[in-house]
């Protein structure tokens, strides 16, 4: 029944904003049902608002909050574990460094001790060698002086024999000795 009068052009109705009394005009501008629409909108919207405010939104907010808490808790736990791991690594590295230092100091000590021992041995050996050397030198000196003394005697005997052969007179031993000593000096 609607638009019987304007059936030829539906779009003309769009322009005919004011409605006639019995609601034959453009329905959205027809005030016949305005009150009813407003009342029903109020009823339904208030119910929707109440359900959203008191049931749906707190529940969804709770879900989101739980999840956020859970994630934050898990992250904190992961953080704590990581810190523990880091501490363990640091402790291990410290222990390693200490052990390495101790090994080095033991090696150094051993080296020092061995060196000291070797040095002591060498010193005793050198001292022994030096003593033997001086002994030998003393003996050489002794031999040398005794040899030299014998040289004088041989020279005297030789001189006395030569003099005897030359002049046929045997010189006194003291004279020959004096003369040889003088010549030798």
């Amino acid at each position, binding site marked *: 029944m609607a638009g019987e009068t304007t059936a030829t052009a539906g779009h003309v109705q769009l322009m005919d904003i004011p409605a006639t009394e019995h609601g034959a005009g453009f329905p959205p501008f027809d005030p016949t049902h305005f*009150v009813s629409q407003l009342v029903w909108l109020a009823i339904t919207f208030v119910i929707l608002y109440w359900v959203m405010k008191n049931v749906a939104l707190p529940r969804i907010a709770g879900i989101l909050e739980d999840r956020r808490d859970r994630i934050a808790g898990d992250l904190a736990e992961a953080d704590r574990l990581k810190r523990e791991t880091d501490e363990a690594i640091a402790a291990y590295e410290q222990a390693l460094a200490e052990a390495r230092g101790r090994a080095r100091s033991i090696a150094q000590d051993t080296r020092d001790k061995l060196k000291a021992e070797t040095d002591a041995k060498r010193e005793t050996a050198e001292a022994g060698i030096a003593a033997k050397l001086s002994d030998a030198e003393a003996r050489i000196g002794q031999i040398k002086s005794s040899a030299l003394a014998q040289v004088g005697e041989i020279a005297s005997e030789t001189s006395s024999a030569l003099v005897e052969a030359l002049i046929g007179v045997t010189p006194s031993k003291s004279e020959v000795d004096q003369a040889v000593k003088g010549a030798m000096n």
Partner: protein
Amino acid sequence: MANDPIHQFHIKTLVPIEVGGVDLSFTNASLFMVLTVLAASAFLIFSSSSRGLVPTRWQSLAELSYEFVAGLLRSSAGTEGMRFFPLVFSLFMFVLVANLFGMFPYFYTVTSQIIVTFALAMVVILTVTIYGFARHGLHFLHLFVPAGVPAALIPIVAPIEVISFLSRPISLSVRLFANMLAGHITLKVFAGFVVTLSAAGTVGIFGAVLPLGMTVALTALEFLVAFLQAYVFTVLTCMYLNDALHPSH
């Protein structure tokens, strides 16, 4: 008559109710308001009923809507604006579900009624005005005097601001109403072409392919518009609420 694009907006009384001489009948529009509220409530309540730490698809969708609207409100009105969250969320869900219901053939589009969108817009504007005055007193009037405007310009700027404030409920309601109305009329007109052309014989049937394609494309567009208009309504609501919270811009 069946092709009348306006026919879909007619209100039919389903259960006549009259209180004190005023017609409060339960109409097809009322029915779809009730269905909208039932669908929105059922969606949010049942999808979140398992309270899963790992959400199901439906729960994910409910959480997504929650965080979407919460994000909109927080970014334009700040954390303080969250006190209006139930209202903003209800508006968003109501408009969105009503718009999407309108996409079903033979379903009534509640938001194609100017009185409905105007009432929703008035809910927003009255909330802004009443809360603004209750909280800031006359300081709320600073809304009409933007900071940093030279004193000489105030007599010019203030009336402009007042007019823009008063036109908000109109623009808010007309935008939603007109989008839904125009979209549904266009759809109906193109769909009507298909029927008319295909009745005109073989050539007409082939010719009907064009408006049919147009109808399919428009349907997709209308789904986008249904969401977009709910989004725009919500964003503007958030911005107006921000004025109530921080009137001195």
